[in-house]
């Protein structure tokens, strides 16, 4: 296993320790619950926004705690939803008069942990609501399964909800905004390699040198189907072909376009995909309003990428453009 790691069991706590040490003025860390939260939270004039999810998706979600984004994140182990207790304790610590919003990527484990925590927090008299994110178009048949999962598009929901709550919106309005963004956001992912969870020590699946997995999520599981490795042009066609007709995004629409790296793919390649996707969208009459290229929601060291579109209107534009300061920065 080619990783910088001491004991795989301390992978998450050691990462969180690093984040805390790197941001002594702005973040606090509670090791018992894998909890990273804003030093200035909770505030009674602001809805507290919390995101849980498993680890292995960094920078999501622990590294996007900060002004204008999350108030707290309490990740579980790699690819495992946090134990309910983490969520409950986090919600209690972030208790605010204006309420607490739990953002949840739509997976069985996460849903259960957050719903249980919400119930118990409500029992203690807290105002707590849950919002599910499910932007992944790779999941079909969602009527008889657990439904679509939340993947890299969750960034836009977090950003919008973070901006609204920062501006003082009340809980219902923060939820309205989050649901609105979620409803116009669609994502499709593709993997070129499998990823290696530190505790497993070997890749989750085998992929031939000339193969790729289409329709992958963010937990390293195989996708919907396997195909022969294709050119960047063909891959963008595949991704747009899945995403564009799904909402659908139509000529005249304005969109935010995200090319998200899954962890092992360098940013040079992401910009290649971006350029191709940008041109193909403009050819369809869909105007790219703003670009998002880089790593937003990863699967450890998986080589691959996902493409997300958000149909924007003036309200969404304003929320996405609002300033934010997060734990990781380039400067």
């Amino acid at each position, binding site marked *: 296993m080619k990783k910088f790691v001491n004991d795989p069991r301390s992978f998450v706590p050691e990462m969180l320790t690093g984040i805390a040490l790197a941001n002594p003025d702005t973040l606090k860390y509670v090791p018992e619950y894998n909890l990273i939260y804003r030093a200035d939270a909770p505030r009674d004039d602001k809805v507290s926004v919390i995101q849980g999810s498993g680890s292995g998706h960094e920078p999501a979600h622990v590294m996007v705690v900060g002004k204008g984004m999350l108030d707290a994140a309490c990740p579980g182990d790699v*690819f495992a939803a946090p134990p309910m207790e983490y969520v409950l304790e986090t919600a209690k610590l972030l208790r605010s008069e204006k309420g607490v919003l739990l953002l949840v990527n739509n997976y069985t*484990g996460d849903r*259960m*942990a957050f719903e249980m925590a919400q119930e118990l927090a409500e029992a203690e008299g807290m105002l707590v609501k849950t919002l599910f994110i499910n932007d992944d178009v790779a999941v*079909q048949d969602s009527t008889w399964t657990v439904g679509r999962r939340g993947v890299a598009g969750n960034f836009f929901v977090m950003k919008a909800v973070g901006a609204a709550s920062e501006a003082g919106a009340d809980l219902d309005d923060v939820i309205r905004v989050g649901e609105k963004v979620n409803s116009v956001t669609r994502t499709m992912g593709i993997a070129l390699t499998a990823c290696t969870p530190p505790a497993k020590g070997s890749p989750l699946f085998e992929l031939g040198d000339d193969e790729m997995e289409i329709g992958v*999520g963010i*937990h390293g*599981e195989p996708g919907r*189907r396997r195909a022969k490795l294709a050119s960047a042009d063909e891959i963008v066609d595949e991704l747009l072909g899945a995403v564009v007709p799904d909402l659908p995004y139509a000529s005249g629409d304005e969109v935010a376009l995200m090319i998200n790296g899954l962890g092992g793919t360098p940013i040079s390649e992401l910009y290649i995909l971006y350029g191709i996707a940008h041109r193909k969208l403009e050819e369809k009459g869909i105007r790219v309003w703003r670009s998002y290229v880089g790593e937003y929601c990863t699967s450890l060291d998986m080589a691959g990428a996902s493409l997300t579109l958000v149909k924007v209107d003036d309200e969404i534009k304003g929320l996405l453009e609002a300033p934010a300061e997060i734990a990781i920065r380039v400067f």
Partner: protein
Amino acid sequence: MSQERVEYVMRTITDQCLENEKYFGDLDAVVGDGDFGYSLARGFEIVRDQWDTFDRSDAGTFLQKVAVTMSGRIGGTSGPIWGTAVLRAAGVVKGKTEVTGDDVVAMLRAAIVGIQARGGAELGDKTLLDALAPMADTIEEQLAAGASSDEIAKAAATSARAAAEATKDLQARRGRASYTGERSIGSVDPGAVAVAVLAEKIAEGW
């Protein structure tokens, strides 16, 4: 059966979940995300560490303490599922220090109902329910037929194993594996196999 037997069962589950961390994880890596073994092990590790400290006033209290301890640490889908299962089973024997065969069936049924309520899965969705439910049926049948506890333990193990193997033909509709659609057909469900392994080990040491 005595409360010691309940403790023996719980202890076997604990030890086996630790023993099989890698095996359960590898099963989950086939069409899932590989964390199943790890998640269980992190929870049962604490159960093992705190084993001597649990309140043993009755079987129900004992199991409840175990359930709370493990849920605090197991994440993923398995945390709420296994925590709920043990908690519901505990409820059935609250205040009892002696547990009958009928109690065992009732505990399993309560666990199944709890798991379904928690995760929304039905039989045939390719989850651990597909091993748990047939096993409960077998125990019930054996009890009705007047079998010895020894025979019942063996029959339960056989039944769970057969049911677990049969999950191979199912398509996953719950959990991570469901996202792979038809590709989930052809491999066993890790949760169901875990139930079979635990049942076998319990029977072995009965």
